[in-house]
């Protein structure tokens, strides 16, 4: 979204909103299928003021973000070193890739039961599920970043006296930064879309759980509140990372 056509984007939002309003108020569809904007707004106020099922709204948001953050931190701390090694040493990559290629496309829900069996119903299985979702895109981005480092950039650094470790720290890592940020964005995206799945088992808090619980009781208004909230928070996170990227990697796309 560029700023020049912000007006049009705004128009799109307004049109969508009006369409929602008109269709829901007209009574053409049941409020169960499509609650009115007013009902959703009321539900939002209710959740803000009274919380949802025992926890205030901020707790739900906080719990979800906490899980996401821990999972993502784990993915960062593992995917970057493993990815750097894989990108640099073809043999390491040959060893690691079969595992990644195999588990990457698997639906998280397929192996969630196994994770719960292994790690229990606490936050650890939820975080493991999210971390697995985060790991693959991050790893792949780092590997592709490293293998894109121009051979002659490394040679050049050696000609300036850089040794193996210097090469890793001062050449390869910064070279992969642009790809790393791309990876971070897809990775967070993947993790985020797995949030609801992760909060399916034995949770009593979290935005994902809230939506699931609301759908158990067919509280369409709460479902809409949850969805809108999740969408807005995701957009915010993405904006934050783009801002970070813009500040950390100003040369991106301009090499």
């Amino acid at each position, binding site marked *: 979204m560029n700023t020049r056509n912000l007006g049009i984007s705004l128009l799109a939002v307004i049109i969508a909103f009006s369409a929602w309003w008109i269709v829901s108020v007209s009574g053409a569809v049941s409020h169960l299928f499509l609650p009115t904007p007013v009902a959703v707004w009321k539900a939002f106020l209710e959740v803000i003021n009274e919380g949802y099922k025992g926890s205030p709204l901020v707790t739900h948001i906080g719990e979800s973000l906490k899980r996401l953050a821990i999972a993502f931190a784990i993915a960062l701390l593992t995917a970057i070193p493993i990815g750097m090694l894989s990108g640099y040493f073809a043999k390491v990559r040959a060893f690691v890739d079969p595992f990644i290629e195999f588990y990457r496309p698997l639906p998280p829900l397929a192996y969630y039961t196994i994770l*719960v069996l292994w790690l*229990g119903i606490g936050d650890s299985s939820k975080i493991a599920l999210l971390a697995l979702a985060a790991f693959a895109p991050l790893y792949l981005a780092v590997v592709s970043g490293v293998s894109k480092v121009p051979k002659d950039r490394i040679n050049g650094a050696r000609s300036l006296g850089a040794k193996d470790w210097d090469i890793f720290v001062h050449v390869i890592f910064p070279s992969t930064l642009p790809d790393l940020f791309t990876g971070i964005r897809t990775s967070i995206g993947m993790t985020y879309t797995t949030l609801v799945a992760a909060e399916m088992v034995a949770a009593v808090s979290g935005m994902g759980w809230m939506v699931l619980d609301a759908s158990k009781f067919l509280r369409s208004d709460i479902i809409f509140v949850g969805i809108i909230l999740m969408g807005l928070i995701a957009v915010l996170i993405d904006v934050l990372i783009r801002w970070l990227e813009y500040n950390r990697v100003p040369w991106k796309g301009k090499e």
Partner: protein
Amino acid sequence: NSSKSGGKDKYPKEVTIGYQVIPNAELLVKTKGLAEKKFPNVKINWKAFDSGRDVNTAIAANSIDLGLAGSVPVAIGVTNKLPYQVYFLHDIIGEAESLAVRNSSGVKSVKDLAGKKVGVPFGSTAHFSLLSALKLEGLDASKVTILDLQPQDILAAWQRKDIDGAFVWNPILSKLIADDGSILVTAQQLADKGSITADVGVVRTAFANDYPNFLKDYVSVLDEAVKLYRDKPEEVAKDLAPVLSTDEKDALAQTKQLVWLTSAEQSNAKYLGSKKSESGFADVLLQTAQFLVDQKQIPSVPKLEDFQAAIRQEALKK
């Protein structure tokens, strides 16, 4: 997870209980904080579950000490040698789970379901009851389109007229009735014909061995809740209504659709019994498992003794 301490008469420092939102004694215990009152020095973690399947998984993962699951998931669990035992029947499912059909679908009897679409959550007590009902009426299950639907999806499908009937529980059941539905068969009627379903309290065997007194005392708390309900059902309904996301009147109606039993009543051989060899409920579990095998839901079934071993009567004894 519970941390062990001292001898067999001691309480654990911590206990994790997996409960479900079903209007029975355990929900009342949780809502009124009865267990916290009884065990002031024990940290009690309540974990909500939606299905017996997840309770089974949680027990297998060693994540909870006590749990509540339907008789069908428990039969599956025992068949798979999950390290747990039945220590209490939280309720016998009466009219709480029923087969509802849409009036406009023209279904008047179970036999009329041939060629119709019926929704039910697979692997649940309702699933067992539905298949039992079909079998009792001699209708081949393959003649009916049975769809694996979670309760909320049953309501959605119902509203859209995607299904003609559903075997399901509250709060969805009452919504179906309210929307052009009527009840064809109840779990109560099936129970009368021998196909009993119940919501079952299970305990990790190791936990029960370590803290037999705690289990005994927890059962006494449950008994207390049953008495409370029998004395003042309206007050109980008032307490449970918000937890059930409904009003007092409906909450009262819902509690009445389940049979609450005290531990003394459960000592009857008809239920858990008082001896390993004379537990009616072990037979129920065996029958359930055998039925699931017949329906090709699980591959094989263990012997009766295995089910009898999975009943723990000690906690019922005063």
